């Protein structure tokens, strides 16, 4: 069942990214570009996605996941420098190419060679992150 739910979730995610137009980099950059011809689509996608998720979070207290186990514990509201630095780096890359991890994967079948190059670079970036964390700690030890 765990695999069935994962496939269903991935399928809904992929279908949603496809029909919403979020694999079109010009729509993402068009939303970020407040000085250009602004494209509001991304706001509708984000808003639409938050509605079912907010309902799901409300169902969590007092229940268990369908496959058993436990739900993710509430996060400590700690704003680390990794969160800020990482999100800023991610945003810069997102703006440059108009792709984030989900749409980059969803568009692999039809986006052409440059989507594969992007995903390869993204995987490389993910692979070097553990050593990046070590360097960051050495450069400025966390308090």
């Amino acid at each position: 069942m765990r695999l069935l739910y994962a496939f269903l979730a991935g399928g809904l995610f992929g279908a949603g990214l496809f029909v919403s137009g979020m694999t079109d980099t010009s729509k993402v950059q068009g939303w970020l570009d407040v000085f250009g011809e602004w494209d509001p689509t991304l706001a509708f996608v984000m808003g639409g996605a938050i509605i079912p998720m907010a309902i799901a979070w409300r169902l969590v207290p007092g229940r268990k996941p369908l496959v058993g186990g436990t739900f993710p514990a509430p996060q400590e509201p700690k704003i680390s420098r990794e969160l800020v630095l990482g999100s800023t780096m991610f945003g810069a890359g997102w703006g440059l190419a108009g792709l984030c991890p989900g749409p980059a994967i969803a568009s692999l079948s039809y986006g052409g060679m440059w989507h594969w190059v992007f995903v390869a670079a993204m995987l490389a970036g993910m692979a070097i992150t553990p050593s990046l964390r070590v360097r960051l700690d050495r450069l400025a030890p966390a308090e």
Partner: protein
Amino acid sequence: MEQDWIWGLVGGLLIGTGGAVYLLGNGRIMGASGIIGGLVDGTGRNTLAERLVFLAGVILLPILLYPLYGAVDTHVSTNPLVIIAAGLLVGAGTRLANGCTSGHGVCGISRLSLRGIVATVFYILAGGLTVVVFRHLLGVI
């Protein structure tokens, strides 16, 4: 297209429903960078099958829907420097921050997570600034 926002909303609802299935079914947060990243750095070894099956769904559904559209232009940049730099930044940035648009954005904001909201503010500001600088000032993208 005039109905772009409607399809945006429909797509958004599908994405959020996927996140709800992953949360209520498997008790996990649907974050694309976390699901992929766990495969790359080995932290997801115990949940390998679940991650691969999820990603198979993400890739497969667009393949099934594609014939209904005929052609989809993603308008992706063909500048190797831009694409490689962007990929590296997205990969390292999302792993450092422990989340991207789906994890911090969709799943985080919907539970009013402070970390999710802060991350989203920073990646949108950085993204907006990058587009302004590289499109309007430098003319690279």
